[in-house]
């Protein structure tokens, strides 16, 4: 587990890029953080690290964006509008948990019931300092807090 302080949206995206570069097909990344902390910025960075040619945008309305990748697809999921577990299960997100897909899930606190045990967790908090400061904590599958 490591915590990095970022000082701008670009900083957050850069951190996402270096994190994204080490992801493997089949990985699931759960992102936690309030409105406006930069989850989508971090995801954009991950996609740059994965050399996705398309341009990631917020999937809040459509819930799932799919971006073609060399290994298959990147599923960019946003559970902001999900009301409860029944709606979550209706979505069938589990169908994206396979070797041809990397899954990036924003508002993952709403997906706890279906997250695979070996996911990455990324928590983003507003920092104590300037408005733009963020504390980003990345946990690998082996070191998830219980």
């Amino acid at each position, binding site marked *: 587990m490591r915590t990095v302080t970022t000082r701008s*949206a670009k900083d957050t995206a850069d951190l996402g890029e270096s994190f994204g570069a080490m992801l493997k097909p089949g990985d699931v990344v759960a992102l936690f953080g309030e*409105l*406006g902390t930069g989850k*989508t*910025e971090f995801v*954009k960075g991950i996609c740059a690290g994965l050399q996705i040619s*398309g*341009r990631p*945008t*917020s999937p*809040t*309305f*459509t*819930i*799932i*964006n*799919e*971006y*073609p990748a060399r290994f298959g697809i990147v599923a960019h999921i946003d559970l902001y*509008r*999900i*009301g409860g577990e029944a*709606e979550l299960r*209706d*979505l*069938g997100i589990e169908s994206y948990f396979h070797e041809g897909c990397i899954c990036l899930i924003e508002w993952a606190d709403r997906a706890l019931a279906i997250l695979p045990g070996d996911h990455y967790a990324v928590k983003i908090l507003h920092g104590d300092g300037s*408005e733009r400061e963020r504390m980003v904590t990345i946990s690998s599958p082996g070191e998830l807090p219980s």
Partner: protein
Amino acid sequence: MILAIETSCDETSAAILSNGAVLSNVISSQMIHSQYGGVVPELASRAHLRALEAVTNAALRAAGIEKNEITGVAATSGPGLAGALLVGLMFGKGIACSLGVPFVGVNHLEGHLYSNSLGDAGPEHPFLCLIVSGGHTALVLVRQLFEYQVLGQTRDDAAGEAFDKVAKMLGLGYPGGPLIDKLAQEGNPEAVRFPRSFLEEGSLDFSFSGLKTAVLYHLRDRGLMYPEEEGASIDRGTMADVAASFQEAVVDVLSAKTIEAATRTGTDRITIAGGVSANSLLRSRMQSEAARKGMTLHYPRAEYCMDNAAMIGYVGWLRLKHDRASGLELGVEANLVL
């Protein structure tokens, strides 16, 4: 006689068109208290599955036609939520197959582009369209029928999404667009100078994520976030000022970039479409800016701003008329582009 189905996101909708004229247009969220079974909009595919038959039957009944009078079926094939799209596409194909009539898949965004031709004479080609909704923000040049050029689009949040998230921060309900529009009319649009993101010089792309965060900081720094959740309430005047100032920032950017795109492409016909095109400030600002430049502005009737099957049926009708039916092997494409 075309039957059209739209299930790309939250709304389940069915429409009947005769020679491009809308006979009926039924949308699930508007059926809540109706006699057809209390369909409540829900997220995801199973909700569409539950609502689709009732919505389609309601559309047939409202149009006063029988199923066997249908001569073609259109359904949205993308972009949207794959599972939701699949429900409508398969349902549409099934009906086309059983009736032995042609089927056509329609791009949801293409539907919005022609939503100004529903019920009114739409603009002649070429025209420029600003699509603004919860899921999309794009400037598209429609050169001629079926020939589109995307000039710019959002790099992060859609404009409608920013409206919904700011409404949530202010403790207003959902959908946020109409509520902010209404509240803003009581507020001072110059009370708070929120940032306008025009991106790099000459860009016709949009970015609303920074504006959303700026509103968040403004409210948080004054202890005004999520008033409902904390049981507190913000003074209505303060809320109205924030709503008006936020809306002003969004409309400033949308209108400036749209006029710039029209000027640059030498187009003097502008249309706006999508849920946010119902916003009163956007309409009045675009109207006056267009008039000042000697351009004409079209905006859709209220019922065709939100996601609806009538616009899908209109494009489906155009496509079938021009021999562009789809094969039954057509699949859904979550990230379909124009």
